[in-house]
């Protein structure tokens, strides 16, 4: 009988043993908390480590979760530098006063509206908001050029959006700063009343458009690019909106150095510098289908030039602090329970 007990017990004890030593040791490496996915930036960060000889340790996760983790860890956070997928998450840390100012020569490489007004973070690449549509069913001329048109009766029940998703929330914050809270709430409510379909994220929206479940979706341009890379036959296409429309907003990914960097602060700044070099910016343009924000690198060939949809000039650093109000507006519009 004892034999039967001890075998599984042994398995359990042995199972954990090899894992005990798998953490990275020592405090002599640059610790990066990355809200940007490993699939997207992993090899770029490895390049940085190789070229500079700085050893790195990267915790990948959701931008929002990592920002809250850094906030909870407080002064004891092992993190030296934060890569954010969205302006909202890094804006939150900025609002909590956890970022230190970047050197002017780093900041100056990107246009003023793609960095924090207090100089605490700098944008790296941009994802542009688009309307994704099903080209098998819809002609591009039928796709509206403003998100405000989507409340018209002809679009009833044909549009999808993701109210709980970070990128939609950032887009709404931008709309608020361009058009004010009242008009934003009006639009959100009108969308709900027009039978908009809600989804969990950009990917689910694009899939639904591809299946023909809905005709239009409010998403970031990236997801259609990635979908095309995996399945060139997919019928979805991106439609870029007029530049002065909130629906054409550019959401920046960003980097910021944390106040817990200590002895690693210099290496952290070197990472920020590296991510704005031509090499890194070209990587964003070719590997992640994103708009490069610095070094005069051209955007991916199938995207309109960054200034042709003249990107709305937004103070992105206002996004973090304003996120709570944005969420309240979305909640009050009833969209989330639609």
């Amino acid at each position, binding site marked *: 009988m004892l034999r*039967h*007990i001890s075998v599984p017990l042994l398995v359990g004890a042995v199972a954990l043993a090899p*894992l005990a030593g*798998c953490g990275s040791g020592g405090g002599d490496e640059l610790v990066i908390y990355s809200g940007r996915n490993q699939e997207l930036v992993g090899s770029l960060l490895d390049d940085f480590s190789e070229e500079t000889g700085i050893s790195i340790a990267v915790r990948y996760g959701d931008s929002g979760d990592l*920002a809250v983790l850094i906030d909870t860890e407080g002064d004891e956070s092992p993190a030296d530098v934060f890569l954010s997928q969205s302006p909202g998450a890094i804006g939150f840390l900025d609002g909590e006063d956890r970022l230190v100012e970047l050197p002017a020569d780093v900041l100056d490489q990107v246009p003023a509206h793609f960095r924090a007004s207090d100089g605490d973070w700098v944008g790296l690449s941009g994802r542009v908001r688009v309307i994704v549509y099903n080209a098998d069913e819809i002609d591009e001329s039928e796709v509206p050029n403003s998100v405000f048109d989507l409340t018209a009766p002809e679009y009833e029940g044909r549009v999808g959006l993701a109210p709980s998703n*970070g990128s939609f929330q950032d887009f709404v914050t931008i709309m608020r700063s361009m058009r004010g809270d009242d008009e934003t709430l009006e639009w959100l409510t009108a969308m709900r009343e027009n039978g908009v379909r809600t989804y969990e994220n950009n990917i689910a929206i694009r899939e639904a458009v591809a299946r023909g479940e809905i005709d239009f979706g409010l998403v970031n341009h990236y*997801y259609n690019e990635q979908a095309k890379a995996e399945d060139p036959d997919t019928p979805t296409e991106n439609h870029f909106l007029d530049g002065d429309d909130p629906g054409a907003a550019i959401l920046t990914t960003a980097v910021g150095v944390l106040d817990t960097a200590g002895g690693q602060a210099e290496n952290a700044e070197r990472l920020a510098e590296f991510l704005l070099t031509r090499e890194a910016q070209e990587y964003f343009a070719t590997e992640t289908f994103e708009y490069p924000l610095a070094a005069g690198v051209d955007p991916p060939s199938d995207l309109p030039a960054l200034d042709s949809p003249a990107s709305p000039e937004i103070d992105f650093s206002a996004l973090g602090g304003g996120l*709570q109000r944005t969420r309240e507006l979305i909640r009050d519009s009833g969209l*989330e*329970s639609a």
Partner: protein
Amino acid sequence: MTAVVIPVRVRRFRGGPPIGLSVAGIVVAAFFALPLAYLLWHNIGVGRDLVDVLRAENFLDPLRRTLTLAVIVSFGATALGTALAWLLTRTDLPGRWFWRIVVPLPLVMPSFVGAFALVAAFTRGGLVDSLFGIEQLPRIEGLWAASLVLTLLTYPYVYLPVSARLESLPRSLEESARALGRSPREVFRTVVLPQCTGAMWAGTLLVFLYCLAEFGAVQILHYDTLTRAIYSSKLYDRDVALSLSLILAVTALAVVFVERRHARRRVQTEAIAPTARIVQNNLGAWRYPALGFVVLIVGFALAVPIAVLAQWTARGIFGTAELTARDVVRPAITTAGLGLGTAFVAVAVVLPIAFLTVRYRSTSGEVANGVIVSGFALPGIVIAIAIVFFVVRLPNYEELSRSIGLLVFAYVVHFGSQSLRAGQVAVGGVPRRVEDAARSLGVGRVRRLVTVQLPLMRAGLLAGAGLVLLSTMKELPATLILAPIGTETLATEIWTSQSEGFFAEAGLASLVLIALSGVLTWLLTIRPSRARS
């Protein structure tokens, strides 16, 4: 051993529990109480006024929807899990050995993958449509869809403890009943079912709590519950997220309280170690309809999602994605190690509480029970952040954050309820007579535990380990936050790929996760019972 059975109540000791046991119980409970302590501290100590926050969030409607879903799924999963357990342990259903491996597996499907795949399969333009040209498919959304999907994903919470109970249940009772001319159905209703109530309730409670904290599937299926507000506030707005989490915890505690009062009154039959002989009901004409039923369930819960995952993977292989086996081998080893390790830690640490609650009328045991069980009703991210909140105050936080200790701790706090409920069923199945006999022969307490009690509780404890294992292997939010930097599990691989639209890699990692779970479940819960019989 013989199969002599005398149904009696499980007797409890008249006096209090041994001091050592009580102390162990209190220490264990204190660790499990960290998330609750964090919620209370934030909501009462530092946050905006709790009542104001809750009123603004209009939480009653989402709470009502959460409870409706939890009740429906609890009933559905209990019926389904029990039926499957009986069919696979007590009948001559064809291919039982195979079904025993695959039937528990839906539990390992991360709900965001399972629900996403089911929607992708059955929606217009999806897999079923493109294969069979069925365009008139209903929309998969709302209460009915969420209930159905969650029932299919959670019935293993009932199936595993109930089939463990059936395994350790003496067949002689059923034999007698059948000798007296009762039909299999009557035997099931009057003899088997009453003996499984404890195990059934254990599973039902887990299903209920799972539904409280569930997020991925309900969001995909457009069913607006309390967790949505927690996740959409992203914890930036901790006043909202943590006050709603407190509501979840209080709901869980209330349900546990009611359940325990019920459990105390329940008559439990003592079971003696099973006979080597397996008695099976001859299904007769029902053999193939029963087989069809099992095929249908496994088909929807497992085969359809697997088909979708395989489609994603294939699309990538023939498309442009770069798939390499190496990407999944190391995460698979890590996942298996973490899962097995956590499972055994989780079974071991809650054992004192299982004894305290089942053997003694110990109030501290009941409190500990409530604290442990409520951990399952909280979102994983809340548990992870709560643990960081406390541990960061220790002088060696940076060192701790580089070990797997914190992660295993979080897993145990999150999933300890599963091993506890299974452990309570197991302790309830150990007849006091056997122990008394051992004691009268002068056998010490530790030796009694190892030589008498543990062997008798084996099936139940392993079922608990199996539940924790499957839950741990798919856990995501706490893993991302607390794993030592550089640790990759299959769940993080799936998330990494799927969240940015790399479906081929997400599909491959999911398939490996399901296959690995199958192997481990077989090793852990099926092979031992086959070896014995």
